[in-house]
């Protein structure tokens, strides 16, 4: 199945894109997608313990399943205000 990945701030800089389309296997979770991206962009690894995520613009845990067509966002530590 195919998903859209949204990246922000330094993750976007590392990947060189704000949005990626990626094919993932059946029964993938957000964590699966993340590990696939770490493989592709090794500098993502330093965010392993500080990343949070969202699916279709709603906060989600890394063990949440993803579905075909989902928008999966990875959020580095935030700094609003």
């Amino acid at each position, binding site marked *: 199945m195919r998903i859209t990945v*949204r990246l*922000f*701030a*330094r993750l976007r*800089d590392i990947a060189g894109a704000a949005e990626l389309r990626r094919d993932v296997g059946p029964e993938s979770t957000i964590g699966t997608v993340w590990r696939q991206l770490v493989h592709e962009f090794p500098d993502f690894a330093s965010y392993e313990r*500080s*990343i*949070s995520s*969202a699916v279709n*613009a*709603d*906060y989600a845990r890394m063990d949440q399943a993803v579905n075909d067509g989902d928008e999966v*966002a990875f*959020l*580095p*530590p*935030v*700094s*609003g*205000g």
Partner: protein
Amino acid sequence: MSVPLLAIGSAPLALEPLIAAVSGPTEAAGPAPGSYGAVAAFLGLVRNHNLGRAVHYLEYEAYEPLALRAFEHIAAETAERWPGVRLALHHRVGRIVVGQASVAIAAASAHRADAFSACRYAIERVKQIAPIWKREFFEGGDVWIEGATADPGDQQARAAAERVACA
């Protein structure tokens, strides 16, 4: 002119519209007109120095649909903790130069203590959970500022924000 209570966008911010929005007439379900006795307001500005660096400007980016949800979440938490408080919260994105506002908050309440607390709580929670990032452009370089891991379900973070708000 009335503004939405919660918003994120690139337009410059001002407190007056937020103060009018929280202290003006409410929907049928809200408090009766005239029941508020206090409005506390907060404006966050871009400062010309940070960690010894001379700052030129900041660039903010956000995951806007999730940021709005985060603001709704913060407003709901505020209403739960301080019943009867009405909150307005606007955040700006894009390039913001020194002296201009990045965030504006107003909280209306029957009494001042709750207004101050709710206002402080809201800015603490924005910093903890809103999917917004700032990149600092300073003399000699630029850097993404990375603060808290955004987790609205983290009750320790929520309790910490509440402690600061009620100190």
